[in-house]
């Protein structure tokens, strides 16, 4: 017989962003127990439900060997007694008495009662706490109730002082605090108590609710997910703000609404910000407009602050703030932002930056001394750019300052202009150099200064900006070069989807010029699809092995020592191929190489001939050295 299963872990409010991960962790553990559960959650409950859970585990059989069949009767009786049966119930297998012990499968309810406490405590969270005392269990937030049902029975266990039962809890203020449920009534009972269990349903309620408000919001899926997991009964409302605040930069207004208040921004038909916002409440309605007015007042105060800072900051130009950077720490071991600025300006110059780029580098960090950035740190750079524009800096300069932290992720775009790309590169390279020289090097999952992201940004800018710059020499230490090598590989493999052996082969021919590496890789992909490529690559691998075994590192080549036939033919082909793009020579080269290895013995008895042959093969590899090392290719043959 199979039964429905319900587990609800009732907690205090779990941080929204941790919920999906926790559900997956719980689901996987139940699966290991043979329960295929569907998962749901609100901030106050993690829920697993399953149909068709077997009432019992399968019966098991075990064969127990006893005494030899010629053993004395007493021994046989003793064995039978130990198994709790009569000697007649034993059987003989081969030379021994045996007993087939059948164990009925355990009741699932017992298995679950035993396993669930451990499973619950093993749910993974990025951060946990204890609440019952120092040696008590750890969880993301205190567990306050547990519903655990198999069929109509409670799966009995105790965890963190909470006894499992059949009593759930509704919305904190709109629902009842203690409500008995069955597996069948559970979801509807919650619904009646203002808890929408399904995230999809809450998402839909938010979206439908916004549609019904007749406003256009700036789409923001991340914010939507946050609100879905921050509420049990989400209801959107629209509010207004004084249109005079629209004179503030849109970036600032959106940040206040988005990051500080978790509001959606509203746009008009032309996509410009409109003086409204959408907030999502965790109650059913705002009948008297109290919630709307409350939110409007909070927003008004925040906008007032922002405007005050915006105006105050204008009293001192960015250019007059450079000296103030001496008071802002970049990193304890790496000095102030003033020192960093000096280094970055120099590096921009080394990278060939013009006056605009150097000007942008000089002003780039000045916004760290402004009140607005102290208030909205996530807008650093952007605010500097906006101030620079307001203070009459040319487009090339203010845009470079605005974009200096780009790309912030692999999905983000790179800075829009050349000066911005140089400033972003120099800033990141300086951070990397400094951290590596001070021993602050990422290891495993520890990367507190986000150096991987910085290096990834450098790679992305160089490739997508098609910049061939003398950046390689700036890396200095071998450790940092190795770190970048991994980042370049990661970029081309994981972000761009090249095959790992292609990336290795192309990088073996050099990777200091990343746009060049990219174009070689793109050509590589095309060549690889041609039928001659893989056999040729296999031959190249063979050549490399021959040269390595012979410890050959170059030597004179004399055409006069060539034998007529395949050897001369290959030599001619190599000469023809010289200076030609690889795409056009593979086809002709491949049969000559094959024939050569078929007919010619490289290890000729005459040492002079042998050396000459090695020199020719060496020359062949050399021709492609700047393109790729084909011996890195993993071939099927």
């Amino acid at each position, binding site marked *: 017989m199979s039964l429905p299963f319900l587990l609800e872990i009732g907690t*205090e*409010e779990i*941080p*929204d962003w941790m919920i999906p991960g926790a559900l997956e962790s719980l689901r996987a553990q139940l699966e290991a127990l043979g329960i295929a559960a569907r998962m749901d959650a609100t*901030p106050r409950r993690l829920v697993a439900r399953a149909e068709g859970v077997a009432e019992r585990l399968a019966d098991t059989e075990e064969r127990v060997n006893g005494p030899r069949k010629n053993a004395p009767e007493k021994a046989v009786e003793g064995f039978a007694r130990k198994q709790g049966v009569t000697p007649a119930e034993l059987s003989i297998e081969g030379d021994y008495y045996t007993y087939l012990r059948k164990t009925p499968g355990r009741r699932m309810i017992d298995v679950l009662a035993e396993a669930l406490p451990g499973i619950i405590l093993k749910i993974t969270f990025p*951060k946990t*706490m*204890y*609440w*019952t*005392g*120092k040696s008590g269990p750890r969880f993301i*937030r*205190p567990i*306050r109730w547990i519903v655990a049902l198999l069929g109509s029975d409670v799966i009995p266990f105790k965890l963190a*002082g909470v006894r499992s039962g059949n009593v759930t809890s509704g919305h*904190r*203020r*709109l629902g009842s*605090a203690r409500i008995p449920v069955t597996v069948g009534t559970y979801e509807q009972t919650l619904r009646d108590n203002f808890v929408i269990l399904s995230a999809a349903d809450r998402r839909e309620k938010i979206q439908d609710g916004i549609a019904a408000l007749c406003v256009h919001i700036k789409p923001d899926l991340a914010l939507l997910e946050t609100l879905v997991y*921050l*509420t049990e009964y989400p209801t959107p409302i629209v509010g207004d703000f004084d249109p005079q605040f629209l004179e503030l930069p849109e970036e600032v207004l959106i940040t206040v609404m988005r990051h500080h*208040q978790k*509001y959606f921004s509203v746009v008009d038909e032309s996509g410009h910000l409109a003086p409204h916002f959408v*907030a999502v*409440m*965790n*109650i059913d309605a*705002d*009948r*008297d407009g*109290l*919630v709307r*007015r*409350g*939110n409007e*007042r*909070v*927003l*008004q*105060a925040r906008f*007032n*602050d922002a405007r*005050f800072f915006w105006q105050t900051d204008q009293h001192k130009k960015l250019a007059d703030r450079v000296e103030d950077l*001496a*008071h*802002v*720490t970049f990193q*304890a071991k790496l*000095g*102030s932002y003033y020192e960093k600025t000096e280094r970055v300006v120099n590096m921009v110059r080394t990278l060939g930056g013009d006056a605009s780029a150097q000007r942008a580098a000089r002003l780039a960090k000045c916004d760290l001394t402004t009140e607005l950035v102290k208030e909205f740190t996530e807008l650093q750079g952007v605010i500097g750019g906006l101030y620079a524009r307001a203070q009459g800096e040319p487009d090339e300069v203010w845009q470079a300052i605005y974009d200096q932290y780009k790309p912030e992720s692999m999905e983000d775009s790179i800075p829009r202009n050349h000066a911005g790309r140089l400033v972003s590169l120099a800033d990141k390279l300086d951070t990397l150099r400094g951290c590596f020289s001070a021993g602050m090097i990422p290891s495993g999952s520890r990367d507190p200064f986000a150096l991987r992201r910085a290096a990834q940004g450098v790679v992305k800018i160089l490739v997508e900006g098609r910049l061939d710059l003398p950046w390689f020499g700036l890396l200095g230490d071998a450790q940092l070069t190795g770190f970048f090598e991994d980042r370049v590989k990661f970029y081309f493999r994981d972000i761009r989807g090249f095959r790992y052996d292609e990336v290795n082969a192309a990088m073996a021919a050099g990777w200091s010029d990343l746009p060049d590496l990219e174009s070689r890789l793109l050509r590589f992909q095309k060549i690889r699809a041609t039928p001659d490529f893989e056999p040729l690559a296999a031959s190249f691998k063979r050549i490399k092995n021959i040269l390595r075994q012979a410890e050959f590192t170059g030597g004179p080549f004399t055409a006069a020592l060539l034998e007529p036939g395949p050897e001369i033919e290959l030599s001619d082909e190599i000469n023809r191929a010289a200076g030609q793009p690889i795409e056009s020579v593979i086809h002709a080269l491949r049969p000559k190489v094959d024939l050569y290895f078929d007919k010619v013995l490289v290890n000729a008895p005459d040492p002079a001939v042998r050396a000459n042959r090695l020199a020719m093969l060496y020359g062949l590899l050399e021709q492609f050295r700047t393109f790729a090392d084909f011996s890195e290719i993993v071939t099927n043959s």
Partner: protein
Amino acid sequence: MDSFQEIIFKLKSYWAERGCIIQEPYDVEVGAGTMCPETFLRVLGPKPYRVAYVQPSRRPADGRYGENPNRLYKHSQLQVILKPSPNDVIEQYLGSLEAIGIDLTRHDIKFEEDNWEAPTLGAWGIGWQVMLDGLEITQFTYFQQCGGIDLDVVPAELTYGLERLAAFLQVKDSVYDIEWAPGFTYGDVRFEDEVQFSVYNFEMADVDTLWKLFALHEGEAARLLAAYPKSAQEATQKARFPLLPAYDQVLKCSNLFNTLDSRGAISVTERVGVIQRVRKLAVGVAQAWADQQEAAQ
């Protein structure tokens, strides 16, 4: 409409009814209610404790000369410590909001993740900022560590921002317009504090003097800590040892640090080091206090 003081009375009565000792504000300058011995030291050790008090909290750098309607050099926190935290602590907390007239079926309450940390105190906890119609009104924290010590019993700390709550309830756009008592606004009572301390903290505080004071208080705290009897044989000396006065010296250092900071007098290189110095003292007091309490058992 309740006045500022009426709101405070109601909250105090509410928590008194739930077994809290109602304390008066601590009489040494602090940056937050958490720093008072009633929180910082009482959360250590296994003894249950419940206390509530209003603590004027000084943040020199937040002063705005009385010109900003929402920012204050000195604001008032209602600090509630429930040790151990009761199972229905959130319900009790929501009840306190209802006690001051907030109908939570008509207002939007959200608990948003916000873990609190005070590096100078070696203290941190897990919790939320409580949002009421988009306004942060309370910091709710389950203490995990204090003075670098894992806590035996986990207390819940509720820190209400009283000015914000009052402005919300009285529908005032400026804290200075809050009615403190019938006929008196918040501005009538506190405006001069804001102006004068802003002038002092930002313009006139004598940096050399403040550094000297810092060194004196630091030295006194360190001297006392060094004299704390270590051995178990000295039980009598331990029991009467003046750790509370030592902690006062630490609080003085902390406030001086904040004042120096608002004066722009702490350079980059010094900053981390000064925080470390205060932390070392705070942690030292906490550890000695835990030892003293244990010895008294």
